[in-house]
């Protein structure tokens, strides 16, 4: 992979990030309510509210406000929480590892579940295995993550007692405790992705298994395992990569709900809480970081195309 290509792709991300930042800043104007009113309390006088507005800079022109915010962001300063009075950057850094570990857990569920289901369905096409995977995938796509989360809690936490219903244990505290606390949230968050991947992979694997080069591989006496794992999968996985990029965005968005349900103190819960208190610097900062992450992951997906498809590597 030529370095030039990667650098070129990175530079092309800059305008995207600028647009994203404008979008995020602008969107906070659409949130109903006035932060100053909320902050001042129920029986505050108009003068008090006005004073707070001035203090927060809410009376400045939107463009000025945006510029102040953006120059802070570029210096790594995302502002200070209106309620907690803690710098947003500090709080995000503390919560980030939690959300990342949840996202990775969900991604593992998506990839492992999707690959296993997709391969099994494609190779046992038309059998009960295929029907089971397809049926399961439909259910997985149709059920919202919070519903899956609630069912998991009822079955595995309340009735079976295998996992804690809520709460989070950090990996440095207790690796097994961490695994236990992360399992159900990961499944709830990754199930839809696994369903989408399984479905897509089934289709593309069936197509690829009919390709001439698979026939060549058979004619050369290669084992079915090698034909599927090497020749078919590398070609079938191309559309899955695109899908994964999109799934990661969904997944990070989904952390807002799932962290709330399972009481996980990550970025998602931070956003959830801040939206209700109109803590704008927190919402802006956290959403920006998540947007950055999504852009970065899609960049990595783009780069990985070159690995799968050698034709793209030269252009």
């Amino acid at each position, binding site marked *: 992979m030529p370095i030039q290509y990667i650098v070129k792709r990175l530079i092309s991300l800059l305008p995207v990030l600028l647009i994203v930042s404008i979008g995020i800043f602008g969107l906070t104007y659409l949130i109903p309510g006035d932060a100053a009113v909320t902050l001042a309390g129920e029986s505050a006088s108009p003068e008090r509210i006005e004073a707070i507005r001035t203090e927060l800079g809410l009376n400045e022109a939107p463009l000025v406000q945006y510029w102040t915010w953006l120059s802070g962001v570029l210096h790594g300063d995302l502002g200070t929480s209106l309620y907690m009075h803690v710098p947003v950057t500090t709080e995000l850094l503390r919560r980030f590892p939690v959300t990342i570990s949840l996202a990775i857990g969900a991604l593992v569920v998506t990839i492992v579940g999707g690959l296993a289901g997709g391969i099994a369905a494609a190779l046992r096409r038309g059998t009960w295995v295929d029907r089971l995977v397809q049926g399961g995938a439909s259910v997985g796509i149709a059920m919202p993550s919070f519903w899956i989360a609630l069912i998991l809690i009822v079955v595995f936490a309340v009735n079976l007692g295998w996992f804690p219903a809520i709460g989070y244990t950090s990996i440095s505290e207790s690796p097994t405790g961490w695994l236990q606390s992360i399992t159900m949230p990961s499944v709830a968050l990754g199930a839809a992705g696994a369903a989408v991947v399984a479905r897509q992979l089934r289709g593309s694997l069936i197509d690829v298994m009919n390709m001439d*080069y698979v026939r*060549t591989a058979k004619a050369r006496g290669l084992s079915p395992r090698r034909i599927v794992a090497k020749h078919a999968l590398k070609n079938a996985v191309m559309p899955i990569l695109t899908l994964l990029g999109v799934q990661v965005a969904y997944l990070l968005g989904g952390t807002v709900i799932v962290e709330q349900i399972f009481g996980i103190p990550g970025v998602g819960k931070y956003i959830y809480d801040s939206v209700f208190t109109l803590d704008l610097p927190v919402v802006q900062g956290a959403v920006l970081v998540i947007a950055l992450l999504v852009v970065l992951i899609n960049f990595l997906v783009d780069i990985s195309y070159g690995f799968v498809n*050698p034709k793209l590597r030269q252009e």
Partner: protein
Amino acid sequence: MTTLIVNEEVMDEVRADPLLSVENFAVEFATGHGWSRVVDDVSFSVRAGETMGLVGESGSGKSVTAMSIMRLIPTPPGRIAAGRILFEGQDLLALDEPQMRKVRGNHIAMIFQEPLTALNPAFTIGDQLVEAIRAHRKVTRKQAGDRAAELLDLVGIPGARQRLRDYPHRFSGGMLQRAMIAGALACSPKLLIADEPTTALDVTVQAQILTLLRGLQQEFNMAMLFISHDLGVVADICDRVAVMYAGQIVESATVYELFERPLHPYTEGLLLAMPQHGKPTDRLVPIPGVVPEAASVADRCRFETRCRYAADECRAAPVPLTSYGPRATRCVRSKDLVLGGTS
């Protein structure tokens, strides 16, 4: 009435044990209304070191026959309904899948019509050659790499060692077919099945590939089953040829005899429809009509609907393949008819 001259020398060869012997072979495919027999009562043999041609139109069953020898037809929807395929005396149809895998690419190799799609676009030429070697030979990656370079050199690709690192999209159609041939030779097979290997190529490249195949075949004393719809190509490369029509073999003979004097009206039709080099051709004569569905003509000569010599006896019953010494034909009127060859 003409007498058929039987060449004693050729008869001796026929009696020798063949390398591959297909006997009364039949394949059926599932359709909406039951099983459709697409290959029926096919028998032929290939001797060590010879090139046997299998000729016919699209849908005549020649490719299905070739794929069946490798047991590569998907089952279902296909099934082998009858017959034996003896390779060195062993019935391939009796082998289980792991045993069959040891035959594929090792004792019998195959090349295909479309070189552009026959190799995996996601792996280098070298990777795929090394894989073909290591599928059947216990050698190190390094040794296999050396052998791969040798093979690529053997099939006439310049700068073989460098080209091993290239992906298939860097190769032209002719070079890809050469690379496919290199892969087929990887384990020095006794039989090479070539399923229309030059059909998708330019005429000049076609000639190069035929020359290459002929040279390699002599060098390694490898038998070849050459499938084609092109009688000109068959005349160029084959020793003997079997003509297929609507799932059956209608005539088999040495290439010389077949062109000199066909015994089946379908063969004569093919020859008349073929342009010839170095001869001013007034007009090519097409065979009227299309290949019928096998089931609709199962009770008579399958070519009868398109045959200009058709008589009542042709409609009376299915016609068996009848041998005349080393030749065979599936025509009830073969003794009455004097058909035109290319001489």
